[in-house]
């Protein structure tokens, strides 16, 4: 049969033939770019003001007067510096040939489904879906096995809960069933990158990564998220882990809590949706837990303020000899 069928790539290429931009579209796009160029030129050419020198002098004076306080590390910076030092001197994780890096976590995620699936007159219905996740990763063969078991969800609206079971969505979510995924030859676009181990270079590389667009949150929050990604379920080297903590110390993070066994830091943003992200680390820098909390909730989805829409507790990563 394949002899009669044209090349699949050519089929897709033909189907994807998009029209040339119209003159209006081209003009509009060019005008938007020109406006951005003009805006940058205006900023760059803004003339020095007469009050600039006195202002600079004032700032300088304030810096000198407040110098000691200014350069004193914040509690979060101090805690992260200690963790960075501990991580730097830790022994690297040795993954013997044929073994796996194994991580188990308990998590709660926000799930959103179209209201029509519930037979409800809402555009979307949100609920919290707890799950257990086990990951075996073998870097040498680019092999990953993931076991996910979804558990009983919790709802913000009792009507939605009843409709969930009435419409068989518990079967769709495959509650209490171990779902196994095995992937080989997968190169993770974040974990499998040789990120710099020097903090400033790492910061720059992560900023480059997030600058590619698609996320409306502030850059520092995106970098925080990406840095957290690098700490999960991996065998990152001591130097690499240390650089991540040094980098985190450069972000506008707050120390939430510090005990003998753990520190919790957070970063908060107000746009596009007020959210606080926290991570908890042990003194050696192992990621123990993370949360994302919707500070103002989401009226449209019926999510109350201060709801944790992501909550994960990690067990310590260990080496497993088999699956």
């Amino acid at each position, binding site marked *: 049969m394949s002899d009669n069928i044209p090349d*699949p*790539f050519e089929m897709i290429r033909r189907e994807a033939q998009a029209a040339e*931009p119209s003159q209006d579209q081209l003009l509009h796009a060019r005008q938007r770019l020109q406006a951005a160029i003009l805006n940058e030129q205006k900023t760059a050419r803004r003339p020095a003001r007469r009050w600039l020198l006195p202002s600079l002098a004032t700032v300088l004076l304030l810096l000198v007067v407040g110098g000691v306080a200014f350069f004193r590390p914040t509690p979060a910076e101090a805690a992260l510096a200690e963790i960075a030092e501990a991580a730097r001197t830790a022994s690297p994780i040795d993954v013997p040939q044929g073994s796996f890096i194994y991580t188990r976590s308990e998590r709660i995620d926000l799930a*959103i489904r179209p209201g029509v699936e519930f037979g409800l007159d809402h555009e979307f219905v949100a609920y919290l879906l707890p799950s257990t996740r086990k990951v075996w990763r073998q870097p040498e063969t680019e092999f990953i096995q993931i076991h996910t078991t979804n558990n009983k969800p919790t709802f913000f609206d009792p009507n939605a809960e009843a409709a969930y079971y009435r419409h068989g969505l518990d079967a769709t979510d495959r509650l209490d069933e171990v779902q196994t995924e095995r992937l080989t030859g*997968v*190169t993770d*676009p974040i*974990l499998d990158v040789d990120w710099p181990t020097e903090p400033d270079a790492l910061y720059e590389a992560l900023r480059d990564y997030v600058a*590619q667009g698609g996320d409306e949150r502030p850059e520092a929050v995106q970098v925080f998220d990406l840095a957290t990604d690098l700490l999960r379920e991996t065998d990152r080297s001591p130097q690499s882990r240390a650089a991540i903590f040094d980098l985190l110390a450069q972000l506008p993070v707050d120390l939430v809590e510090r005990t003998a066994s753990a520190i919790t830091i957070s970063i908060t943003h107000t746009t596009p*949706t007020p959210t606080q992200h926290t991570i908890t680390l042990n003194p050696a820098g192992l990621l123990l837990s993370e949360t994302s909390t919707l500070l103002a909730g989401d009226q449209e989805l019926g999510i109350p303020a201060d709801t944790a829409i992501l909550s994960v507790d990690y067990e310590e990563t260990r080496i497993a000899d088999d699956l």
Partner: protein
Amino acid sequence: MNDPGIDAEVIEGSLQDPDLFAVIFQRHYRDVHRFVVAAVGASDGPDLAAEVFLRAFASRHRYRSSYPSARPWLWGIASNLIAGHYRSRARQNKAYRRVPPHPESEFDHSRETVNRVAAESDRPLLAEAMKHLRKEEAEVLMLFAIGDCSYAEIASVLGIAEGTVRSRLSRTRSKLRNLFDQIGESTSNDE
């Protein structure tokens, strides 16, 4: 007008003379437009294509001058914007929602894109076969057949070796041919 040089030189020059960036627009806008419109459709595509150049202009100081052509860079930006478009359009991945870390989750928009293109065609066989593609297969297919990128450009966009691009494309082509056979046979048996 003097030749402003290769893309890398133009972008470097635009750091001092921002007007120069119009050259990058002039050279690549039509191709970017075609790619983005094919990926997300004619209603949102043109705006997204314009946005690619705004993002590129704003981040041009991070451009790696070791890449002579700006195409992989622009296609990477476009690819991310396409991903963002699918996220926001579906509203099932709001900006605040973080999905479980999953090696397959990063480029799901590639599958969305190839599925969309196939679904809009009048070829049910194609639409059915696309559903079986894995993310890594869909992403090379998207850039090759829809984005009209070369092997080297795809390698740059995805940060993988050119040989890997070739082998993935080859595997994807074989897989699609096999799927066409299987789906075609099952359709004839049903009939």
